[in-house]
């Protein structure tokens, strides 16, 4: 139970506990130059300096100084004003953790990792997470997904009837919660393309394919992560999986970067993004496009795919191999792409920011004269579609595998396609 007294003590307790030595050095390395602000999507739509990287870093530095600095050691740690802590908590959760500041930091601070760890500290102090995010651990425990949807329905509404899933195979496909419950055309596309390639693949039963842990990780709620990781890794290992495929950049990120930490050793299989697998299949002649698409399309790099795991060329290779397609680029693309607004589990809590950021992407795509905006992240897919509702500029939105699936399926599609020469 938290009474006034224990809260008081808590505000004096050290802030550095959950950060690595390098992250603590990173906090001190910020020169407060403010150069990263021009890349911050939240700054673009709110202008709220409290959310800016140097300000968040400065505030956290002050907390450390007040509780662990030389003065605090010699005399007494200062009690930090609770209001200040609450303001900081809101700021650190309003950030989309897109990492654009990290990419453009003049010093090289890895903020894409730093922000989730600062959130973790605020959770430890009973201040985070914000809004409905707090319900996530309970909901995931109950249903296996953060959307409170029935686990048995996970694949029901979208999984194509004509595709065979093998009991055991070298390749496994993980749909992910956002794709399965909120961006079904995307995961259906994944399965159709995998099927067209003709490689045998396996999947876990719907009740066993639980959350990868990313929503918990990114909101700083780490308690269940080890358990979720062990369950999933154990289940895929039992199926003899050598490569685990997934189309959600956030899942791929936590699988590749953090699962080994929670699992305690190197994973017994490789993690690959679906575009890597499909680009390879196209390159080696295992997937052909019999017809093309005479359209100009623009591809949006998801933050956790480009800056997160360095998958930049493969989606472009897939798109370029579609006959007739003209590929356009956003001003900021690849490692420097602009967040779509959905990142950092902020899309539901800071909905207005997310919609406003999503509209920046739509506006640029329209201004560039693209016929279609291609995405490759379920969270982007949901949020950009939402951002388009009621917006003056309109564009067709499609997921990369949804697009590929439509082109490779039968000739009578609703697409404005043409026979490839």
């Amino acid at each position, binding site marked *: 139970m938290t009474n006034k007294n224990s809260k008081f003590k808590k505000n004096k307790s050290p802030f550095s506990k959950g*950060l690595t030595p390098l992250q603590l050095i990173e906090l*001190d390395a910020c020169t407060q130059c*403010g150069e990263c*602000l021009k890349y911050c999507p939240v700054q673009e739509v709110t202008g709220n300096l409290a959310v800016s990287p140097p300000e968040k870093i400065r505030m956290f530095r002050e907390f450390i100084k007040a509780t662990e600095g*030389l003065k605090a050691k010699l005399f007494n740690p200062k009690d930090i004003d609770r209001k200040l802590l609450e303001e900081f908590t809101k700021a650190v959760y309003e950030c989309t953790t897109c990492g654009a500041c990290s990419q*453009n930091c003049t010093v090289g601070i*890895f903020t894409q990792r730093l922000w989730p760890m600062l959130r973790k500290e605020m959770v430890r102090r009973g201040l985070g997470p914000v809004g409905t995010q707090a319900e996530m651990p309970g909901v995931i425990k109950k249903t296996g997904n953060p959307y409170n949807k029935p686990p048995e329905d996970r694949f029901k509404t979208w999984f194509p009837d004509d595709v065979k899933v093998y009991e055991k195979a070298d390749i496994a496909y993980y749909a992910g919660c956002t794709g399965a419950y909120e961006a079904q055309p995307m995961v259906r596309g994944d399965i159709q393309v995998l099927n067209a390639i003709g490689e045998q693949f396996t999947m876990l039963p719907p009740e066993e394919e639980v959350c990868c842990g990313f929503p918990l990780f990114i909101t700083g709620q780490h308690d269940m992560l080890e358990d979720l990781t062990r369950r999933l890794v154990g289940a895929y290992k039992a199926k003899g999986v050598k490569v685990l495929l997934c189309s959600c950049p956030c899942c791929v990120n936590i699988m*590749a970067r953090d699962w080994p930490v929670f699992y305690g050793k190197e994973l017994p299989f490789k993690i690959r993004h679906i575009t*890597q697998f499909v680009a390879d299949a196209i390159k080696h002649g295992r997937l052909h496009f019999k017809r093309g698409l005479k359209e100009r399309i623009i591809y949006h790099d998801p933050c956790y795919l480009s800056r997160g795991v360095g998958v930049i060329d493969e989606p472009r290779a897939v798109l370029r191999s579609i006959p007739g397609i003209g590929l356009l680029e956003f001003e900021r693309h690849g490692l420097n792409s602009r967040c779509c607004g959905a990142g950092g589990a902020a899309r539901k809590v800071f909905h207005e920011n997310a919609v406003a950021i999503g509209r920046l992407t739509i506006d640029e795509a329209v201004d560039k004269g693209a016929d279609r905006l291609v995405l490759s992240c379920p969270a982007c897919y949901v949020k950009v579609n939402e951002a388009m509702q009621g917006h003056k500029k309109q564009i067709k939105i499609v997921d990369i595998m949804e697009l590929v699936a439509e082109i490779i399926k039968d000739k009578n599609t609703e697409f404005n396609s043409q026979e490839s020469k």
Partner: protein
Amino acid sequence: MKIFLLVISYLVYAAFWGRFISHAFIWCKGTRQFRTGPLHISGVSLSLCLVTAIDLLFFRRLFNENKVLWIGSWTFHVSFILVILRHLNYFFYPVPSCITHIQPFGLVAGYILPVSLFYLLAFRIAGRKKYFSYHNFFLLGMVLLISLSGLLMRMFFSPNLVDVKSFMLGILTFRPDLLPDSSLFFIHFSLVLLLVPFLPLHIFAAPVVTMESGRREAGLRMVIHDK
């Protein structure tokens, strides 16, 4: 006054290292979990060393971000270091030859330093609507005052350099000597003492982070790509 300045000097010096050491303790206290594994960190290669050296010596990251700021910032840092090295002249007897060789560069840097500071201050004021760090502004102002007072001594109101040197050596050797009879020197020296406690820790931390970011970026292609 002599004893007062002396005591203050030692206090400032002790406080600086106390602050640094206490921060170093905080750095070391961090958790061992989530240290990026070897999987995602590139090994040390010649090209990586080269890139890191360029990052550190020429502020490549800042150059890529903002060339206008880079010119001012790089010039400031280089001239500041040269001026400090030149001042080592006052702390050694006999003066090592490397410090003697640096003197002409340090002298030129002494003229460039205030220019770069005016440039940086103008840059900060012009861009203050975006983000404004009062601490940085204060630091730049302090260094500007220090460099201007130094320049005035150099050009117009030179103190007795022998007195300056014996005063500085006195501080170093715990044998306090007379404060040189120059109010400008007094101001110059006091401002330096005032500046030291405010020196930002990024002078130590930023090079470490920049080096690590080079390794991390080189390792990005290893996260889910075949090596």
